[in-house]
C-alpha cells in the first residue's frame, strides 16, 4: 500500500485509514449509473428492462472508474473496472441459460400439462391422425425413437469405447502397440472434432452404398451415425478414469497370480466403475440431443415404430425441428375435423410451435435427468482414492 504517490498524499489520510474506498461507494456509483440510464432511455422513449440494465452497467463502469480514479488512483480504478467487467462477462453468459430455460419451461409446460384431451397426454399420444391446426398429438413416438436409437448407439459405442480405453491404458505400453496407441489417441481427438452433420452423411453414405433403395432411412442408420460421435467421448472419459486407478492395485493382483484380464475386469474396472458410469451417462446425455445426424438418417413418421431395422423413425430433436419448420397453422374455424375418423379437435394457430416447445421441454428433461444421474453416481459411488 505504499507506492510513492501515497507517500505524497499521506497528509490527506488519517492515521490508520485505508486508501481503498469501502464497498458501498460501489453501490452508489451503480445506482447512479442505473438512474442516469433510465433517465436517458426515458428521454429517447426506448426504455425497456434489458436495455436499462445494459446501459446502466456500462454507465456504472464509466462512473465507477472515474470516481475511483479520483479517490483511489489509476491502478485501483483499473482493478475495480476489470472486476466489474469480469463479473459482467459471467452475467452475460447466465442470461442465455436462464432465458432459454425460462422460455422452454414457460411455453412447454403449459402445452404438456394442458394437453388435450387429458393432462400429460402429450407424453402418451403420437401424431397419427393429427391434421392442420388440431390442438392434439404428442411425442410418444418421438420419445420411443430417441430412446431406441440412443440405446442402440450405446450398445455399439460403449463396448468399443471401453475396450479402446482399456487398450490405451493397459496394453499400449511397448513396441507396435505403443505406436498403435499413439495413433488411436490422435484419431480419437480427430473423431471428437467431427461435425455432427458429417457423421450423419457417413451413416447415410455407408447404408445407401450397400442398399438397393437410395431413399432407405431406418433407426439403425441413425444409431451408427450417433455412435461415431459417442465413441470418442466414451474413450476420453473412460481413459481418464482408468488412469486414476493406482498401479499398486494392479501389482497386488498380479502378485497374487491373477491373470491380466481378470485383474482388469475385477480390479481396474471395478475400482473405476463409478467414474466410468458417470462418463458414459454424460456421453449418452450429449448424444441424445444430436439432431443433424438423425435428420439425414432416420427421417420422420407420425406413429410409433419399434423396429430399428425397418422404416423411418421419429425422434425428439427432429420432431422439434419439423414442428418449428411447420410454423403457424391455418385455422378456418374454431375446430378441425379429421375426415377419416370424424374426430373433432380445437384449432389453434400456434399448435405447431407449442408442440415444438413442449418437445424441447421433454428433451431437456431427459438430458437433465441423465446429467443428474451422472452427478449422483459420481457423488455416491466414487471410491475414495485420494483426497
Amino acid at each position, binding site marked *: 500500500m505504499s507506492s510513492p504517490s501515497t507517500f505524497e498524499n499521506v497528509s490527506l489520510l488519517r492515521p490508520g485509514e485505508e486508501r481503498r474506498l469501502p464497498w458501498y461507494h460501489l453501490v452508489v456509483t451503480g445506482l447512479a449509473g442505473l438512474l442516469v440510464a433510465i433517465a436517458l432511455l426515458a428521454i429517447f422513449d426506448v426504455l425497456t428492462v434489458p436495455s436499462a440494465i445494459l446501459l446502466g452497467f456500462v454507465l456504472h463502469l464509466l462512473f465507477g472508474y472515474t470516481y475511483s480514479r479520483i479517490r483511489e488512483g489509476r491502478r485501483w480504478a483499473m482493478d475495480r473496472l476489470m472486476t466489474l467487467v469480469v463479473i459482467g462477462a459471467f452475467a452475460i453468459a447466465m442470461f442465455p441459460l436462464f432465458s*432459454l430455460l425460462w422460455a422452454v419451461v414457460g411455453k412447454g409446460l403449459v402445452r404438456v400439462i394442458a394437453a388435450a384431451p387429458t393432462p400429460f397426454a402429450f407424453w402418451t399420444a403420437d401424431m397419427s391422425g393429427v391434421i392442420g391446426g388440431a390442438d392434439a398429438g404428442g411425442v410418444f413416438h418421438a420419445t420411443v425413437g430417441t430412446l431406441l436409437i440412443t440405446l442402440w448407439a450405446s450398445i455399439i459405442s460403449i463396448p468399443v469405447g471401453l475396450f479402446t480405453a*482399456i487398450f490405451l491404458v493397459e496394453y499400449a505400453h511397448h513396441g507396435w502397440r505403443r505406436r498403435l496407441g499413439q495413433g488411436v489417441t490422435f484419431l480419437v481427438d480427430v*473423431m471428437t472434432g*467431427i461435425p455432427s452433420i458429417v457423421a450423419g452423411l457417413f451413416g447415410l453414405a455407408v447404408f445407401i452404398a450397400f442398399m438397393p433403395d437410395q431413399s432407405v432411412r431406418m433407426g439403425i442408420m441413425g444409431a451408427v451415425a450417433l455412435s461415431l460421435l459417442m*465413441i470418442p467421448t466414451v474413450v476420453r472419459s473412460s481413459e481418464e478414469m482408468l488412469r486414476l486407478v493406482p498401479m499398486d492395485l494392479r501389482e497386488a*493382483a498380479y502378485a497374487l*497370480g491373477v491373470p491380466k484380464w481378470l485383474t482388469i475386469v475385477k480390479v481396474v474396472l471395478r475400482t473405476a466403475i463409478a467414474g466410468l458410469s458417470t462418463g458414459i451417462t454424460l456421453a449418452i446425455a450429449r448424444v441424445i440431443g444430436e*439432431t443433424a445426424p438423425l435428420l439425414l438418417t432416420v427421417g420422420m413418421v407420425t406413429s410409433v415404430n419399434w423396429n430399428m431395422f425397418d422404416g423411418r423413425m421419429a425422434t425428439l430433436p427432429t420432431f422439434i425441428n419439423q414442428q418449428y419448420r411447420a410454423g403457424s397453422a391455418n385455422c378456418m374455424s374454431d375446430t378441425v375435423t379429421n375426415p377419416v375418423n370424424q374426430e373433432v379437435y380445437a384449432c389453434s394457430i400456434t399448435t405447431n410451435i407449442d408442440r415444438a416447445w413442449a418437445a424441447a421441454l421433454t428433451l431437456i428433461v431427459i438430458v437433465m435427468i441423465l446429467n443428474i444421474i451422472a452427478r449422483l453416481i459420481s457423488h455416491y459411488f466414487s471410491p475414495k482414492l485420494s483426497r
Partner: protein
Amino acid sequence: MSTTEVTPDTHEGSSVSLQSSRRRLGDSVFSALSVGSGLLIFVTLALVAIFLTTESMPAVMESREATGSASGFSLLETTLPLVFGTVLAAAIALAIAIPVSIGIALFISHYAPRRLASTLGYLIDLLAAVPSVVYGLWGGLWLVPRLEPLYLFLNQTLGAWPTWPGFVPWVGGDPVIALFAGEPHAPMRNLASAAIVLAVMVLPIITAVAREVFLQTPRLQEEAALALGATRWETIRTVVLPFGRSGVVAASMLGLGRALGETMAVLMILAPGATFSFRILEVGMHQSIAANIASKQAEASGTEMSLLIFTGLVLFVLTFLINAVARWIVARSGVKS
C-alpha cells in the same frame, strides 16, 4: 475401497498346465478385443474418409471444372459461398465468445469465492448440456425478435461506417467492409443472429479449457506479484494471462471447430443466401455448409446428393485441420484439459 474378490489359485500340480492355458486363452481373447477396438477406430475413420470421397466423386466428375463445358454446375461456385458463410459466422461467433469466455474463466478461477466456484462452473457446463436444436428453437423464436431494435440501432448509427477498410477482389465483395451496412428487415434471420447463438454454444467449450489453464498458473508467481504490491488485475495481466495464452488460443481453436460444424442453430435461424457479402445484418445473404446439407438433403438424390457430400468432405477437412492445430498447441503447452 473396493478390494479384489479374486481368490488366489491354489496351484495344485495337476491343474497348473490347465490353469495357465486357460489363463492364456482369457488373456489373449481380452487383449485381442482391446487391440481390435483400437484398430476399429482406425478403420472407422478410414471408412469416413473413403465413403465421403467416393460418394462425392460423381459430383466432382460432372462439375464444370472437370468436364470443361460451360453448362452444368460449378463446384467452386457452389462451395465457396458456403465456405465463406461458414467461416464468417464462426469468426463472428468467436469474436463474441472469446472475450466473454476469458472473463468467465477468470471469474471462476480468480474472482468468485472458492466455495462457489465449482457451482458456477457447473452452471456454465449446463450451457453445454442444452441440445443444439433447443438453441435453434430459442434463437429462432425468442431471441431473433428481441434483437431487432439492437440491429436497427447498429444499422442506423454504424451502418455508414466502414468497419474494416479494404478491397477484397477475390471474393468480389464491397470495396469497404461495412459489417452493419445494408437494409436489414424483420424477421432478423441474418448471420448476426446465427453467430450470436453460435457464440453461446461455444462459450462453455472455451471457458472449460481456459479455466483449467488459469488454475494451473504457478501459485508462487501470483503470490510474488501480489507481494510486490500488484492489484488483482495487475497480477492477472502480468502473470495469469501470459501463462495461459497458448491455452486460450487452443481453446479458441476448439471452439472454432465446433462453430464451423454446428448445424441446427444456423439451419433454424438463418435465412439462406449465397453471396460473399460482409453485411451481417442483411437477411438472406449467407448460408453455412452444415445447414445447407441439412436443408437440402431431403430432396437431394444422385448428383445433388453427391455434391452435398462433397461440401461435407470440405467441412470435414476444414474442421480436421483446425482441430489438429488446436491439439498441437495444447500438446506443446503441456496443458491438461
